[in-house]
């Protein structure tokens, strides 16, 4: 097996991974950086983010206001020290990206423009039309080509973390084009593998978002934090789940039920605002959890529109006019036209809530370090936590940058001071075991199970039991089903015996990751007997700060369901209060 010696290995080359790689290369050109990704960097799902990235930059804004919006939006489950750090760093990171060439949309003066976003009291969302994530990713990727010390390993699927003496020793990965296993020996590993939206059937997430990094850390003993918090984006295209950015509502789009009513006014987000004059933090500019929950209630009342893709409501953009839509939202106009055959200039677009983002993830501290020495994490796969129980739109792109860089700096400091030398014998042994385990997958007996069958059973039970509203019975059933599916997956026999670009093999590996991650969602949700942010229990409808102002921590117990523990939320200056999106002056 080929062994590659590095100082820092980064797993995942989306926004966070690329930002980390650049930060490492800039911090110390002598550092040997290995950047691993199961796809080419520009395929990473960061490219699908549309609306923008939040950062305080305008005169009418302040760091405190961004802090309040973020913490309140997260239903006070955010770690406030992390939020403060994040908000302080945000403008600098966004400006740095501008210096690297990101084509931010501009004001007529040439200054960077900002747009309104849900749950934000002030306009502070930087945007590049409606392809912000795409431009951010490509800017980072192209900028990364400047640095010779970043050695890229594209289409290399990380299968195992190497851990010995209680610390990271590197990782093991499958080179997809050859089928060969590679061993990376390094004192530090940064996981930037993104979320796991694919555990649900209806998601904005691309096929690659299968929670691989979360599962790697989890198996290595690192807890997954706040996994029960899954964000539904209120405006997904039915059928495909394609995202229509929150920017649609930021620019003035409104939601209507089948009677044409702006129903959000009935769910504590009114009074109704005049058409074409969106009011910040009110009605359609409320937070995503509230909007998605309002849809559920409308559905219960029979106010949704039945379509061939299921129940929908309408996103009405007609009053914005063609010119504004073409300037600000050309991509989503094209998407709606192509995939549901509706031109938003003249027609209402059918939409429904769609799984979009995992607030939870690999437990890290404010330095992006996990409890396992040498292991760091950033981006959607991590939980710092700045998003709490509900992320505000446009905080996550900024989070990639701020904590991607933070993880790199922490890793560089660790490598340069604390890290003892690699235990090569232990690493070699573990790598050999990992390789043997992969090879053994080829010889597995056919237990009559299929990949698609188990995957569909997983996504179905997640939607049924761990959706927008949950209860004890539903979650229990889902947790049990997932436990059974975890056992049953051993009965999938590989029909593809080839080494070269064997996507059946990688899908089997991804499925194992997804099942473990899904189980932590269900079991953490079962344990949290309250309703907070995106986690809504029909049997515990109120927030319960005395018992659950705490992060849930899911620890792997091997084949068994996870053990759930709790960690207190860090509160620096904002005591839990009422989330007010009624348009009242705060």
């Amino acid at each position: 097996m080929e062994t590659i010696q590095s100082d820092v290995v980064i797993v995942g080359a989306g926004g966070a991974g690329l930002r980390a790689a650049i930060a490492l290369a800039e911090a110390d050109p002598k550092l040997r950086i290995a950047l691993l990704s199961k796809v080419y960097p520009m395929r990473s799902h960061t490219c699908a983010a549309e609306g923008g990235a939040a950062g305080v930059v305008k005169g009418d804004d302040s760091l405190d206001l961004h802090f309040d919006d973020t913490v309140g939006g997260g239903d006070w489950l955010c770690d406030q020290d992390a939020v403060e750090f994040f908000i302080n760093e945000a403008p600098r990171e966004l400006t740095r990206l501008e210096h690297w060439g990101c084509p931010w949309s501009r004001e007529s003066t040439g200054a960077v423009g900002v747009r309104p976003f849900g749950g934000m009291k002030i306009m502070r969302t930087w945007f590049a039309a409606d392809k912000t994530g795409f431009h951010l990713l490509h800017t980072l990727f192209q900028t990364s080509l400047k640095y010779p010390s970043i050695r890229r390993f594209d289409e290399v699927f990380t299968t195992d973390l190497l851990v010995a003496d209680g610390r990271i020793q590197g990782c093991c990965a499958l080179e997809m084009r050859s089928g060969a296993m590679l061993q990376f020996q390094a004192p530090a590993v940064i996981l930037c593998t993104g979320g796991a939206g694919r555990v649900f059937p209806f998601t904005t997430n691309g096929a690659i978002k299968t929670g691989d990094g979360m599962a790697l850390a989890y198996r290595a003993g690192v807890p997954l934090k706040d996994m029960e918090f899954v964000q539904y984006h209120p405006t997904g295209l039915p059928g495909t789940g394609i995202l229509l950015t929150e920017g649609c509502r930021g620019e003035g789009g409104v939601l209507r039920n089948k009677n044409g009513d702006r129903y959000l006014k009935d769910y504590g987000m009114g009074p109704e605002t005049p058409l074409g004059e969106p009011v910040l933090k009110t009605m359609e500019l409320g937070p995503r959890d509230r909007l998605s929950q309002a849809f559920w209630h409308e559905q219960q009342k029979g106010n949704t529109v039945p379509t061939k893709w299921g129940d929908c409501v309408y996103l009405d953009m007609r009053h914005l006019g063609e010119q504004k839509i073409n300037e600000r939202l050309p991509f989503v106009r094209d998407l709606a036209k192509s995939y549901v055959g509706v031109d938003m200039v003249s027609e209402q677009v059918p939409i429904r809530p769609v799984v979009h983002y995992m607030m939870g993830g690999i437990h890290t501290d404010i330095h992006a370090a996990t409890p396992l020495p040498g292991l760091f994490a950033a981006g959607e796969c991590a939980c710092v936590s700045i998003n709490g129980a509900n992320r505000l739109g446009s905080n996550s792109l900024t989070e990639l940058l701020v904590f991607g860089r933070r993880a790199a700096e922490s890793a560089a400091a660790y490598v340069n001071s604390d890290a003892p030398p690699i235990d090569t014998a232990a690493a070699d042994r573990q790598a050999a075991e990992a390789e043997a385990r992969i090879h053994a997958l080829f010889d597995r007996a056919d237990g009559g199970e299929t990949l698609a069958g188990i995957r569909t059973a997983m996504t179905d039970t997640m939607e049924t039991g761990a959706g927008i509203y949950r209860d004890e019975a539903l979650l229990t059933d889902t947790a049990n089903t997932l436990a059974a599916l975890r056992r049953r997956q051993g009965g999938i026999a590989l029909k593809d015996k080839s080494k070269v670009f064997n996507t059946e093999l990688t899908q089997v590996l991804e499925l194992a990751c997804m099942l473990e991650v899904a189980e932590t969602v269900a079991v953490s949700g079962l344990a949290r007997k309250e309703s907070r942010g995106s986690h809504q229990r029909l049997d515990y409808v109120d927030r319960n700060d005395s018992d659950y102002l705490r992060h849930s921590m899911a620890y792997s117990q091997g084949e068994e369901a996870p053990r759930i523990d709790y960690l207190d939320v860090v509160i620096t200056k904002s005591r839990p209060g009422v989330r007010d999106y009624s348009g009242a002056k705060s």
Partner: protein
Amino acid sequence: MSQRQITFEVLRYNPEADSAPWIQTYSVPCEEEWVILDAINYIKDHLDSTLSYRWSCHMAVCGSCGMTVNGEPTLSCKAFLRDYKGSKIRVEPLTHFPVERDLVVVLDDFMEKLQSVKPYLMPKTEKPVEEGEYKQTPRQLKNYKQYTMCINCMLCYAACPQYALNPEFIGPAALALTHRYNLDSRDAGRSERQEVVAQHEGVWECSFVGACSEVCPKDVDPAGAIQQMKIASTVDWHLEHLMPWRRK
């Protein structure tokens, strides 16, 4: 929802078993609103799990799923079955690239070429982050914006006959990105990029077939970018040779 039975003729190549690619047919019950990729996914999930291909976002932005559909370079997640009449569709890997396996092609060549054109901002003077952003008016943004939209899906290389005849050609997407940075009001790196652009394998290998722009799913218009660069290079040459006093 109405269904349509379509026969997919898919190119298969397993380097460990096959000496040359061959065509396998699958009969797929297709929903009317499907794209080509949905049908390929159906094959993978229900008919033949050994089929290899790339895909991710299913919304025409990650650039993974470029394939040749009925002879035309196509982004398979944005190719709607409603636009294909008849009962047969042929799906092959992108042309002009080596086939790694089935519908997966080798992209090393493009990745090297992309790096060679220095596709990153090289400002005249580095401005400290603390001093804020570089100013850029909407007009200046518009000058290069179109060329930032490239998703690296490689359809343009698959369409370009010059790339097929001379694989040394830098090619449409990489040159369009070069042009993107050259046109950016914040950039001063054009002369550094000229080394690659102005060589024979740069813009001059392009004979303006225009196929790249016709197949581009993002309207980047690489053909236009290349012609504009030819003009700029020509102007450079004349200024340098006819007005030697202008030389630095």
